[in-house]
């Protein structure tokens, strides 16, 4: 079920009313009801894949409990390996099987060997990478003795399948989300109101900005060979805004819905395009995944507390794996690798935490140096987005080649004026709101002004939004 669909518009109020009418004190019944709702939500795509969530949840619940009770380190390790094997096995089969087979056949081909490797028509279950990582963090954290296992299977199953963030995150940690399922959740009026505001902003970004930019991006990337450099630049600029508004829009809606149900999810985006270097960008972009890789890949590899070359290796591995997580395509690997390469000089100078404050606090505009840093970071991100968006490496290199080959002249840009305006709207609004949690956090404004702003956003969605119910980009990951 898509957030931006009619079934969800019916589903959400029903679930919401039932949930709160159960009563906050009977939170276990609420949890059970959330499992049912989440399974309906997920099963709307393809009910067969519910079995994968169920298996993943069951294995990790049992493994987590046993691991917690066991004092034998080797037993704990075996249990952890079982959890990793099952979760990554499911993920690997559904997401990467054909990729490895094709790549292996291609490798054999380079040595002149013909191989008729079998590939399968595998459908990628929606959101598999998200819930797999979420449930994996539970067993890994128990193994590391950072958390205790839960004895409440209902709470655990609800934690894994919680519908607002089930298919595209934020990838929650058991440490922060699971305890919320084991305690009473009180309705908080101001939290609920801000949740609705956050949802509204998410819908605006998705339906008005991302979905309207999508056809332009598609056209430019498909026809890059005949287009001039300015158009190609616009193509990747639009894509940068499309993917941001699509994914951060989803996160805003997910977080907003969770707040309506009395849950607090982690922040997933913190206005990343205002970052002053790549390190800051990665602290602001897809925060739940970046921090997951930091905690479960980068730090176990040694993190920053090792020699220079090992640090470089750790960064390259972490970013490359992060790229590979996005999909079974070399374009994602190169995208990850490129970001890793951007990161290395900053890390070597140990300036990765240079920018942790709000950008240009108390000022309307950034200083020239800040603006330059933001622009440079954005341009580096754009270069990497070309690989992310391209269908293949040859497509990406063809696009870049055409960009540098063609002169910066052309005509017919008037068609791009409207998408350009659309792309700039969220940037301007979020710049003004950059010290807030989301673009529509306006609780301090007078009621009349707030309502007028809500009305403008609603009308914006109604009049300019795309109601074609396009899927969110990150569902495919």
């Amino acid at each position, binding site marked *: 079920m898509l957030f931006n669909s009619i079934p969800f518009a019916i589903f959400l109020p029903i679930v919401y009313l039932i949930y*709160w009418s159960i009563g906050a004190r009977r939170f276990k019944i609420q949890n059970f009801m959330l499992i049912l709702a989440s399974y309906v939500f997920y099963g709307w795509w393809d009910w067969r894949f519910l079995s994968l969530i169920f298996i993943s949840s069951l294995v990790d619940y049992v493994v987590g409990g046993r691991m917690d009770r066991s004092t034998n380190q080797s037993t704990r390790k075996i249990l952890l390996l079982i959890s990793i094997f099952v979760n990554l096995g499911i993920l690997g089969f559904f997401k990467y099987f054909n990729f490895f087979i094709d790549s292996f056949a291609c490798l054999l081909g380079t040595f002149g060997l013909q191989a008729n490797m079998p590939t399968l028509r595998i459908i990628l279950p929606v959101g598999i990478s998200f819930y797999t990582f979420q449930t994996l963090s539970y067993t890994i954290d128990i193994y590391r003795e950072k958390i205790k296992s839960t004895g409440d299977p209902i709470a655990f199953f609800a934690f894994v399948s919680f519908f607002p963030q089930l298919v595209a995150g934020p990838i929650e940690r058991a440490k922060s989300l699971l305890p919320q399922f084991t305690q009473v959740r009180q309705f908080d*009026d101001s939290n*609920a109101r801000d949740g*609705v505001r956050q949802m509204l902003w998410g819908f605006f970004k998705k339906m008005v900005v991302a979905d309207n930019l999508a056809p332009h991006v598609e056209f430019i990337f498909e026809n890059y060979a005949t287009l001039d450099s300015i158009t190609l630049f616009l193509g990747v600029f639009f894509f940068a805004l499309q993917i941001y508004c699509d994914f951060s829009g989803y996160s805003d809606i997910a977080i907003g819905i969770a707040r309506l149900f009395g849950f607090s999810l982690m922040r997933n985006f913190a206005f990343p395009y205002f970052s002053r270097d790549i390190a800051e960008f990665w602290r602001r972009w897809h925060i739940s995944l970046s921090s997951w890789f930091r905690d479960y890949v980068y730090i176990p590899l040694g993190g920053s507390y090792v020699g220079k070359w090992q640090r470089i290796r750790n960064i390259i591995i972490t970013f490359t794996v992060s790229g590979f997580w996005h999909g079974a395509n070399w374009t994602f690997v190169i995208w990850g690798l490129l970001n890793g390469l951007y990161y290395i000089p900053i890390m070597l100078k140990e300036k990765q935490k240079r920018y942790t404050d709000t950008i240009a606090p108390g000022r309307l505009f950034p200083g020239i140096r800040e603006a330059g840093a933001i622009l440079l970071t954005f341009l580096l991100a754009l270069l990497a987005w070309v690989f992310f968006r391209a269908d293949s490496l040859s497509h990406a290199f063809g696009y870049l080649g055409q960009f540098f080959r063609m002169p910066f002249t052309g005509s017919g840009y008037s068609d791009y004026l409207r998408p350009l305006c659309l792309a700039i709207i969220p940037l301007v609004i979020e710049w003004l709101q950059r010290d807030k949690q989301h673009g529509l956090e306006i609780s301090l404004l007078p009621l009349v002004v707030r309502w007028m702003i809500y*009305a403008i956003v*609603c*009308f914006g969605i109604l009049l300019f*939004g795309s109601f074609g119910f396009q899927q969110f980009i990150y569902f495919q990951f």
Partner: protein
Amino acid sequence: MFRFFVRAIVFIILLVVASEIALRTVVHASLAPYAKQDNEFNIMHYDTSKTRTGIFSVGRLAQEQGHWRVNNYGWNSIFDYVSAEKRDKPLIAVIGDSYTNALLCDTDQRIDWALKEQVGNKYDVYSFGYGGIFLAGTIDVAPYVEKYFDPDVVVFLITKNTVKNSLKRYDSSPLHKQLRHTGEGIEEVPPGKYRAVPYRRLARKSALVRYIMLNTYIFQDPLDEDNSTDSIDQNEEKIIQDAADYIVTELNDKLPGKELVFLVDMDRVALYDDENTRPEHLKTSLRLEKACQPFENCHVLDLTDPFYQYYHETSKKLNFKNDTHWNPTAYRIAAETIYSFLNDRLLTTSQE
């Protein structure tokens, strides 16, 4: 929680009221005429007892708009129709589907007006269009037109695949006549009964509901055209040809002694893709030409050449940006094509 709900409900009510005002005055939410079924002929037209004028629109912000007017006989036309007994001029009747109905064009931009401009005072031009009807459905419209208006020339405005889709096995048109092949021959499938659904009639009173349902493409993409390449085997082709033969024969029976002109739209997807040589788009013309061979009064006009010529001279499309239906230019070209043909073959003869 109570305060939260009260505020939410108050806000929603205010938003709905503001939307209703805005979508009636500033952005015109799409409004179509009320439908009605003629019980005698089993055909669909519009209800003259309901709203007679309005604006039909497509797209967000109602980017494309057309003013419609339901005339005295329940058809979308700028003209009020005069019955055969009272009319003093010969009549050209245009029968067809949504292309003839042309809700997106103002009433003075449609085929009847454009053709009337061409023929001047020599002829009256009436149109009888209703969306969703395939060529088989015109078998029911023809006797209605014959009874009330007794036309001299009847033009059938043909869109792609309308012959093929007249067969129930390819498409469904529940409110209009279709055909089925029994193995021994062609058989008619009568249209279903039209029933106005009360909740729909109620919902359409809201401009907000109409805007969401009709302007936002919530259920379909209006640019999604039937782009099937029509690649079918010989056996199927024979069945479709049988259907074409059947329809043309029936139309001749229902409109005895009348000049019948089948004006065939060209495949504009092929035109814009510069695939004018694609053979599929000619199949409808070829089928009708074959079906018309036994009848001297049946003629097939193909819009391929005039549309092709116009597009390659101006690079301007012949349909709306957000909708595949013809724009006023296409109607003008179609009218010129009809007039040119009639002038050469029929009008001069008639005047003589």
